[in-house]
């Protein structure tokens, strides 16, 4: 019952934030205008255009990316059985950054065949680095979480150093701005054409793990006990790994590496719903989306018109909450 209430609360808050978010921007917009933009759309009205083609995709992208990162964070924490894990543990963020930087610094054309290349190369970079990390974490025909963790940290550091080197050698201020802007995350590039990629990846992943939530909870008891209880640990780990790399890859490629969401929200979820709630993953995705929507709204209110980089807001508001949560006496990572 309490879980259902939390779900209803999260959905209601998401809807309220969406409506509020639709009202914030350069064009002054009231509720009747929002209504008209959706139900009496006038193609010549620039305000209607801004609501439907700029604000709505931006809000939905924030929702999807927040949900993706929180969801993947939850999966990673369950897989390595460690509350400090986040979706970027596999080197996704640094790989994506390297991919984007390669384009920003002119090693590849910015636009090929009408496609804007930074997200494409970011996705490519994320996948390549993840594959490399997984290869290092794979021994004796199985994934070893501790080795995976160390490989992730080492390769991420190496790739970050490469990004640092390229940044240092940059010959223009504009390129530096692109890299800094990218590294702190933004939803300004959101569009209807971009949205389906991360959204599809997230929906498919949610569907897959609707069937695997039970195995995930058992995995929290440790690999040996989970195996004894009939869970195919190796298979579950591969499912987590594949899902995290694809979903995080799309999220990072579209919005940049936004920190802390994937670390904090899984803890919030467990704090509210218990360590092994049946709908934890779905709830985690909802709360992640809501948190990101709120952060985006705040960033646009605090620093109009461009908005503060979203990564700064997620850290500023997420970390104190995280500290509060950890200081609560009844908080547990696993059951």
């Amino acid at each position, binding site marked *: 019952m309490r879980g259902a209430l939390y779900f209803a609360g999260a959905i209601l808050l998401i809807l309220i934030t969406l409506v509020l978010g639709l009202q914030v*921007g*350069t*064009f002054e917009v009231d509720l009747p205008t929002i209504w008209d933009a959706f139900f009496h759309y006038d193609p010549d009205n*620039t305000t209607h*255009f*801004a609501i439907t*083609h*700029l*604000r709505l995709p931006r809000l939905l992208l924030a929702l999807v990316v927040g949900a993706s990162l929180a969801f993947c964070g939850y999966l990673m924490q369950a897989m390595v059985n460690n509350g400090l894990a986040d979706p970027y543990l596999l080197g996704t963020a640094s790989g994506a950054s390297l991919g984007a930087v390669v384009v*920003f610094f002119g090693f590849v054309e*910015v*636009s090929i065949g*009408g*496609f*804007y290349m*930074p997200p494409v190369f970011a996705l490519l970079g994320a996948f390549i680095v993840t594959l490399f990390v997984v290869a290092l974490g794979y021994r004796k025909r199985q994934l070893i979480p501790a080795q995976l963790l160390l490989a992730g940290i080492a390769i991420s550091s190496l790739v970050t150093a490469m990004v640092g080197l390229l940044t240092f050698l940059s010959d223009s201020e*504009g390129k530096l*701005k*692109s890299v800094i*802007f990218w590294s702190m995350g*933004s939803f*300004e*590039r959101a*569009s209807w054409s971009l949205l389906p990629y991360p959204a599809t990846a997230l929906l498919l992943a949610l569907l897959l793990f609707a069937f695997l939530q039970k195995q995930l909870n058992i995995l929290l008891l440790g690999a040996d006990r989970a195996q004894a209880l009939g869970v195919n640990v190796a298979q579950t780990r591969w499912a987590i790994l594949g899902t995290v790399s694809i979903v995080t890859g799309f999220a990072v490629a579209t919005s940049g590496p936004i920190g802390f969401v994937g670390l904090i929200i899984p803890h919030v979820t467990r704090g509210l719903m218990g360590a092994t709630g049946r709908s934890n993953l779905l709830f985690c995705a909802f709360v992640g989306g809501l948190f990101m929507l709120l952060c985006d709204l705040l960033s646009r209110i605090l620093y109009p*018109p*461009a*908005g503060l980089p979203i990564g700064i807001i997620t850290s500023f508001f997420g970390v104190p909450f995280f500290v509060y949560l950890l200081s609560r006496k009844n908080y547990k990572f696993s059951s």
Partner: protein
Amino acid sequence: MHPYLKKFLAICLLIVCWSCGSEKEKQVGQALVLQDGLGRTVKLEGQPKRVMAFASSMTEMLFAVCDTATIVGRTPQCDYPAGVYSKPVVNNYPVDFEQVLALKPDLVFTVEGITPLDMAARLEELGIPVYYQKYRSVEDILQGIEDIGCIMDREQQANYLADSLRQEVQEIERRYSGQAKQQRVLTITWSDPIYVYGQNTILTDQLRILGAQNAVQEVFDQPYPALTREYILKLNPDILLGGSIERLEREFFSLYPELRKIAAYQNKRIYQPTGNLIERPSPRVVESIRELESFLYP
């Protein structure tokens, strides 16, 4: 030396310094004490004989005013006039202190925002004074030319140059004063994220001289603010500067297809200004105004 002669010379020197107009410099014995554009006090041991600039625009200023033999180096970005290529390259950011020391300049000129103050402080510790200029308008650049002339003892040349440029500016301004409809111009400097020329840039003054206006009327803290697509959609500029139609189509409008609704795109009023003209507050500022004129009134 006879005491009366000394007094006479001192008075002559004071008159010379006073004639430098707004210059806030005075000579104490052999030393020169200047006040730069940021209000900093810059002390020189005497008339500078070896100088260089840490900004490419300032290098252009020096080449226009000074005896080129007194210019001892250039930055990697300096590409105008052709004479700069004969000068040794010095890294200006981060500053290659050893190379600067090796060239032994008496004074380094720079522009606000190009050289961080802590780097200037470090150079001054090493015995090399740094003189900043800052500009908010075309007239500030012209005064900057006169300022350099005064410091380098090339007043006649500097004043002649500044006056002739001033005359050209006034002529253009007269031609376009009282425009019935001022064209609104948006100038982008970078596309991802979108950075544009804000109000606090010389471009705003150049456009005013041409009877047009910077589409960004809001005053931001930064001279080159970041804007959102929605903001630009609301600005709906008449003219967009920042690249050729083909280039912006490929690198800007393919990324932000929503911005194809703006008047500049609809009417194909998209132009590519020459980078080292529009960006540099140099003696070529009038050339830059003339280029803008060709875009605004084709």
